[in-house]
């Protein structure tokens, strides 16, 4: 098993929401590979489509949303071609998800242990109640929760403990891919740090592949191997974590990193990116970032740049890094 083996291959994925004001393109032709064993950070502002992308990977887009184009290959399984029951078998057993709010993600009238045994038995119906309970006890012990809390209800547990339970649920069947959707956002900093430590340990122990969806650059820096940056429904940059932080290519990534306060506070005033994210029902023409971009060129508002490789392990979606075609070819229209 090489580190470069592709676990999840996302090709040209688009997700649209049919709303009253029009069609909202939440994810626009995104292509991305998740490699086995890596932690891939997916960052971007609220509403940029990162959570939608995460949900699409489990085929959990809810009405009025719809996957309108693309191909999803998980371990060479064509996700979009599976029937519902085969899809259900994958959810929780091979791909699982940890959600943002641990306070509301557990059923308030179900004991902790029943959450875990239910998840085990729905996928492995041959497991007896007793065995499932024993496995649940092992699992929570491993997560740092005493197993005599198994019979507690969710409201008896603290936020950090509940998030551990959520992680436990995601790992109960040794899923290959864990999608952590803002999993630490609602935790306070100390609990968050503990949670990240736990995640790091579990990652080594279980050979996890993690898609870490977050808007918190600090978490990405700490945990991720590679980072994908998303803006207004499109992937704009993909790089190894060190490269991204030391040498961001896309003007949006640059702005994003400058907007993170640093501990020395040597920047004087915190950088603020001009403008606000676009309306995705009527997105700007060409590059969606062009109205806010400090390096905007004439072509940017006219033609979509292509998300393409500029170096090994490095992709950027920006005209600064690709050859601008002859003006005659694009004035008044698109090259595509």
């Amino acid at each position: 098993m090489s580190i470069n083996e592709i676990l999840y291959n996302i090709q040209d994925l688009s997700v649209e929401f049919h709303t009253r004001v029009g069609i909202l393109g939440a994810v626009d032709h995104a292509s991305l590979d998740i490699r086995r064993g890596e932690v891939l950070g997916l960052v971007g502002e609220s509403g940029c489509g990162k959570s939608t992308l995460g949900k699409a990977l489990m085929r959990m887009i809810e009405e009025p949303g719809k996957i309108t184009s693309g191909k999803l290959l998980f371990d060479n399984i064509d996700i979009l071609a599976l029937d519902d029951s085969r899809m259900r078998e994958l959810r929780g057993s091979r791909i699982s998800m940890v959600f943002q709010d641990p306070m509301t993600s557990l059923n308030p009238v179900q004991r902790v242990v029943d959450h875990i045994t239910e998840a085990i038995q729905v996928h492995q119906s041959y497991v007896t109640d007793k065995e499932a309970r024993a496995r649940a006890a092992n699992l929570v012990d491993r997560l740092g929760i005493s197993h005599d809390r198994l019979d507690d209800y969710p409201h008896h547990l603290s936020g950090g403990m509940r998030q551990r339970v959520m992680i436990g649920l995601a790992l109960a069947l040794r899923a290959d891919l864990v999608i952590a959707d803002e999993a630490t956002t609602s935790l306070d900093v100390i609990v968050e740090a503990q949670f990240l430590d736990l995640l790091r340990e579990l990652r080594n122990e279980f050979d996890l592949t993690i898609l870490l969806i977050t808007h918190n650059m600090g978490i990405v820096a700490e945990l991720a191997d590679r980072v994908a940056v998303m803006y207004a429904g499109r992937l704009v940059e993909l790089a190894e974590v060190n490269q991204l932080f030391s040498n961001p290519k896309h003007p949006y990534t640059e702005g994003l990193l400058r907007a993170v306060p640093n501990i020395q506070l040597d920047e004087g005033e915190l950088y603020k990116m001009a403008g606000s994210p676009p309306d995705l029902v009527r997105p700007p023409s060409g590059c969606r970032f062009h109205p806010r971009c400090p390096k905007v060129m004439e072509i940017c508002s006219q033609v979509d740049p292509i998300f393409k490789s500029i170096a090994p392990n490095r992709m950027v979606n920006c005209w600064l890094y690709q050859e601008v075609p002859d003006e005659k070819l694009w004035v008044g229209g698109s090259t595509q």
Partner: protein
Amino acid sequence: MSPGLRRYIIVRTLLTIPMVLILVSLVFIVLRVMPGDPALAIMREGASEEQLAAFRAALGMDRPLHIQYFDFISGVLRFDFGESMVRPIPVTQEIKTFFPATVELAIFSMMVTTGVGIFSGAYAAKNRKRGSDYAIRVLSIILYSLPIFWLGLMLQMTIGAGLGWLPVSGRLSPGMTPDRVITGLYTIDAILTLNLDLLVDALKHLILPSITLGLVLAGFFTRLTRATMLDVLEQDFITAGRARGLHERVLVYKHGLRNAFIPIVTLLGLQFALLLAGAILTETTFSWPGMGRLVVDRIYDRDFTTVQGTILFFALLVAGVSLIVDILYGFLDPRIRY
């Protein structure tokens, strides 16, 4: 049982006492200010003044009101509701005779209501905005707005008289009697005495009245369940469950419904009063010899003691049921602290 729960039950029980006391007083006052003289109603026109006075004296009605009131209250405390004004038997005896019929009707109606209401409500929520959802919603509005006696009459006409499948009145066919009255609920008595014929006959008589009462209340419960379920199904733990590969059916009927039960049970308790009110109409339509019939008949007779006794009994019942519902909470919702 935790000490907290025990304390809660005691306090909650004590709190029902003033409530019942207020109700009893209201009933006493309302009956006295209502037009109509029981002496006249019972002795008929043409009775002489002396006869009327003698009648009133015999029943203690010539005494000052406050004396009558305290007499009534002190009786109630000993579970003595006085003697009926039209028949020389204690009111408690009357209640004992008529109450089982109402209980039986209420139980079967409640089965129809919860069965139809909760299932169709959950089903509508699961299929939100599809055809079946709209159909269920429209039907439930229609059911809710149907007058009970009208629905009862229609069922009597079609299934009862028209097709002749089911009896349209009473609790048992002529000639049928229970071998032994144990609980007063004929279905249960029939099972206890292993009398199959009696059981079938009692059930046949129960079908139309309980469908009538049950369906009308079911309209309300369908809408309530649907609204509550929609709320619950949008919560994060349902999405989280889906992400663990749980079947939609499990999410709706196990996780969803269990959470939705909390508000539903509350209203089930509150609607108990509605059930009793509906029972009065149903009993009248189907000549069902229950408490509803008893009250209606005795109101015509101005039988004060029986009426106030029955209403008091109803009040105690509603208070008791809401007490039970409050306690049930603790079992349904582990988050409740006492």
